[in-house]
Structure formats: C-alpha cells, structure tokens
C-alpha cells in the first residue's frame, strides 16, 4: 500500500508486519516515534505483541534477551546515549546468539547534548558481534527492517541485527512508502538453543579459555556465512517485491574514475553530487556502504576514492576511510563531515571531489586549511 511516512514510522510499520512476540522499549530522541507508534499498534490491537515499557535501555536489551532465549521474536529501538547505556547487553545479545533486531537512530554522543545525526553511536558497538546495516531512505528503512528479521533468524546466522537510520535527516523525514504484505518472507523463528524445561541446560555458564575462544570463532563463522544469507535474502526480496539494494549501493559506479563512498543519507546525497560532477565532465560515481558488519569487499583498484565519514575515531581517523585502507591499497581522500548533524549538501560533496587531495584528511568546515 502506497503511503507517506517518516523513517521512524516506516520501521514501526515493518515491525508490525513481522509481528514480534515481545517488544521492550525505552524512549530517546530521535527514536521515540518508533516505540510510540508500536505502542499505538499494540494498544489498538493491530499488533499482538507483548510490549514491555522498561525503565532503561540496559533493561530494554536485557528484556529482549530474556524473551529471545525462550524462542520468541523480539525487537527494540534506541539511539545514541541509549545505545551506549545498553552496551553491556548489546554484547550479551550477540554472545548469547540471540537474533534480536534493533533499530538505532544514529545520533551524536554528548556532551554537549546534541540530538542530530552522527554514526559514532553505532560505531561504538561495531565489534560486538551484531550485524549492522545503514539505510538512506524511508522505503529502505522499511524494506531493510523486514530483511533484518529474516537474516538475524536464519539458521546460518543466529546473530542480532542493528538497522541504522540517520537521526532527523531520515527518522523525521517524510517520504513515500510502499508497505507490503510480507507473507512468508520472514518464516517462523526456530531458535535451536531455546530454553526447554524438558531438556534443562545452563546458559552462559562459567566458560574456560578454550571454550570461550571457540564460541568467539563460532560468531565469526556465522558473521562470514551471513554474507551469503544477506545476498539470498536480498535476491528473494527483489523477486517478491521488486526492490533491491545490495551490500553497498552503486551509483554510476561501473565506469567511474573517482568514487565517493559514504553511508546513510550522505550516501544518497552523494548520488546527486555524482550527477553534477558528470555534467561537469568529471567521471564520478558513488558507493553507499549499507552493511558495515559484515564489512563488504569490493575492488577499488584503479580508481580515486573520496570517503565521507560521519564519525571519527580519535587518534586514528575516519572509521570507514581507515577500514577501507586496511582492506586494500587505495590512496584515498578522507573527509570528516556531518558530525552532530552538520549540514552537508550535494554541492559540498561535489566540492570534496573537485578539491580532493588523496592521502590527506579534511574536517569539513573546521580545518579546511590543513
């Protein structure tokens, strides 16, 4: 059904479609609209889920963990400080192999208080064993949330998935949305290690070095297998519903000499910049990274690369830029832009490409002279 919705409402609508058994939620700007909308669905009877209005994000994830280990489908949503507050349980969810799906509305970390878009919040959970995907449109937020449940719950994965959308820029932007009858696209969840009182077991028992190490390797193996599951899920989604995105979305990429790489809404904005540059005779293209974990592999050899990070690892650099350089030999121009919701237009992005200085790092609007 074609409608108009914000990114937040699109996520809530997708959650309604897959009908989690238990949703535990705590409000935080700019995510609140998701849990409010879900509360509306539950109150009106449109969604037959147990809704637990917990007293903190730490408890939100703990409640999802408790529900999930019984074999229930679970969902929560958070942002920024909320995500950081639940950090311990974010690790626990992955270590316990629970296919929880969480929407994280990307927002800067204080102090000072800043409620606008930045990817640093989710990046602090980068190494926890969660799959992470970043979306750029309302439709993509909806479609990806549906796919997230299927990927998380797939027997070859059984890991939690975090769906990231940019605070306000996407969470509060109205765009057209085609909601779906997902049918059996997301099959019923069968958690292989669900609690069974007829077959009692200890969960998370004291574990020695050898077994601990082996369990970490199991997570890594599942993370590697998830690439195939993501591809299969995308393919089936495209066949059923006619839309596909890929692990990274390419735009005029094939013959591009210079490629702009970004995530989230900046990655979409970059497509307009590419059109501008092409009109000027610059052979530009863009690559919008969707899946941060597992990190995508692509070949950038023979191209110039401009990476825009809406994040920073102090004393290290832009996380995407540094990650790409760690994976392949590429002399890229690293741009740090959009922190704390800084406005970055397609003209600005075209400017980054025109003025690119490979091997250097630009803090847009801050250290332009360096």
């Amino acid at each position, binding site marked *: 059904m074609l409608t108009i919705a914000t990114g937040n409402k699109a996520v809530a609508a997708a959650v309604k479609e897959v009908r989690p058994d238990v949703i535990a939620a705590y409000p935080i700007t700019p995510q609140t609209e998701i849990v409010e909308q879900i509360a509306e669905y539950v109150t009106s009877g449109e969604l037959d889920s147990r809704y637990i209005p917990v007293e903190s994000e730490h408890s939100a994830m703990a409640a999802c963990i408790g529900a999930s280990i019984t074999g229930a489908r679970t969902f929560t949503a958070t942002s920024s400080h909320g995500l950081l507050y639940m950090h311990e*349980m974010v690790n626990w969810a992955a270590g316990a192999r629970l296919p929880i799906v969480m929407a994280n509305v990307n927002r800067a970390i204080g102090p000072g208080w800043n409620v606008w878009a930045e990817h640093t919040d989710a990046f602090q959970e980068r190494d926890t064993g969660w799959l992470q995907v970043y979306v750029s449109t309302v439709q993509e937020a909806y479609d990806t949330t549906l796919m997230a449940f299927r990927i998380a719950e797939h027997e070859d994965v059984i890991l939690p998935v975090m769906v990231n959308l940019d605070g306000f820029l996407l969470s509060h932007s109205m765009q057209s949305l085609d909601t779906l009858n997902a049918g059996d696209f997301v099959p019923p969840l069968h958690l292989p290690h669900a609690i069974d009182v007829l077959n009692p077991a*200890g969960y998370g028992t004291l574990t*020695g070095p050898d*077994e601990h190490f082996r369990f970490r390797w199991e997570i890594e193996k599942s993370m590697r297998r998830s690439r195939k599951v993501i591809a299969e899920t995308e393919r089936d989604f495209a066949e059923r519903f006619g839309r596909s995105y890929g692990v990274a979305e390419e735009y005029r990429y094939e013959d591009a000499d210079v490629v702009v790489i970004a995530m989230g809404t900046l990655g979409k904005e970059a497509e307009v910049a590419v059109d501008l540059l092409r009109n000027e005779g610059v052979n530009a293209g863009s690559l919008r990274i969707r899946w941060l974990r597992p990190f995508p592999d692509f070949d950038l050899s023979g191209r110039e690369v401009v990476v825009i990070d809406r994040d920073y690892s102090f004393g290290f650099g832009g996380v995407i830029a540094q990650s790409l350089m760690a994976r392949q030999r590429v002399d890229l121009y690293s741009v740090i832009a959009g922190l704390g919701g800084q406005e970055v237009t397609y003209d600005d992005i075209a400017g980054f490409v025109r003025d690119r200085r490979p091997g250097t790092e630009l803090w847009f609007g801050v250290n332009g002279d360096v």
Partner: protein
Amino acid sequence: MTEIPKEEFILKCTSACAGCPSTLILRYVLKAAGSDTVLVVPACCTSVIQGIYPNTAVNVPLYNVAFAAAAACASGMSEAFQKAGKKTNVIVYAGDGGTVDIGIQALSGAFERETDFLYICYDNEAYGNTGMQRSGSTPIGARTTTTPGGKVHAKKDLDAIVAAHNPSYLATACAAYPQDLFKKVQKALTLRGSKFIHVLAPCPPGWRFSSEMTVEMGKLAVRSGLWILYESEFGKVTINGPSKAAMIKPVPIEDYLSVQGRFKGIDRKAIDALKSQAEQRAKHLQKEAEGIC
C-alpha cells in the same frame, strides 16, 4: 510438617564452599518450584556454584545474565512465556549486591510493571563471589575487605524498598529454616504478579565462622531479632513463629556477633546501632501485623 519432595534439582557436583547457604536455599527453592521453572541468575556466587561449562549442577534451565540485568531479563522471559501460553515459573536468584546495589533499578522497574515472576535475594551481606567486599546490604560494624575497620553505614532496608512497590507477596526467610522457606516459595508461586523473598544466607568464609555452623548462625540471627521472619501477602503482614518467639524473649545479639570473625573488634556504638535498628524494625512490623500502620 510440610511434605518436601525428594526430587533433587541441585545435583551433587556444585563448586560451592563447604557449608554454603546459597546452595541450601536454592535446593529448597527448586523443590518448591518444581521442574517447570527457569532460573535467571545475575553475577553472584551461584554463577560459580552451578559448575563449569559444559557441566551444570542445576537441573532446571538456568539463564546467567549480566550483573544489573536479572529482573529485566526475567521480565522479557515472563512476557514471552505468557505470549506462548506457558505457565513456566520465572525465578530470579540473585545475591545482595546484584539486588540492593547494581540491580536495584531493574528490580524496581520489574516490580512497578507488576511482572509475573518471583525474585529471590539470597543475602550474605557482602560481595561474596569477589571475595567479600561491602555491599549496601552489609550491616554496620561488619568487616569486609573494603571495610577493614568495620562498615560505618547501616544495612540498606531492601524490604521497605520492595514493599513500596506493593508486590503481591513479600517475605523474608533464612537458610536455617528450610520448611518455612519451602512454604513461602510455594505460596509465592501460586500468586500472580511480582513476588519477592529475601533470604538470609550466613556465609562461613565471608562471615568467618566454621562451616558446620551455617544453620546455627541462621538460627542465632533470627533468635537475636536481627533477622525477622515475616511475610506480607498483598500488604497484609504476618510475623512467623520463630520471630514471634524472639520478640518475646530474644537471645542477646552479642551471642550472634561474637561467633563471627567479621564482627571482631566491633565497637559499642555499632552494636547499639544494630540493636536499635532491630528493635525499630520489630516494632514497625508488629504494628503492621496488627494493622496499625
């Protein structure tokens, strides 16, 4: 005498210390709860007592969870079981640190939401698992590894905090009175909503007494009036037999303190504070039991 089932859910392969009250308590909790039960255990002595992977000494599903998260985890579990139409008992089994200190926010939230579960705090009055550091539940005057001169602050009144949430059921119990504990767990599990049992767990290495004295130490705690056995069903308070007797004719609290190494060198002021707290608590509970307040 209450008929206590012979079935054992604590198997003979725990890694508990000799004379461990926590294991004793859990044994009777599970006898009362039966096999359709899941335990949620935050970091505490029971994290270790249950054994090392891939073995377990507990014959019901036991979910270990992070220190602050037990009550919240149980909330999710309870709701999920209800959604699935299951009547499985969800029981949090947590130490005092995980209850009165780091876990109190989750505890408060779960009780405010009237989560259908039973929360049992086994209270050995310190962080036993990490080697006896003070907790909010350590009594005044007790030496721990972080209060080498004796604790200067009073024991937190956990029961009053829980009572303020108006739970369906609230009771105290003690490792030395297994019949009483068994009955209280059984009763709690017949009621819907949030139930709470606070069990005193005299800890031989932590309190520094000989390991065959666990039961005796629990009895002294009750007979001296420092630990009062009572229960409150939907707010109606009943003081249980052993504590009624202790209120009429208590043994001197010095008899309880002098046999524990942790109270060695305790000063008069701290003893008086302990006495005064015990008396005030008894008076308050007597009034509640009589329906005066």
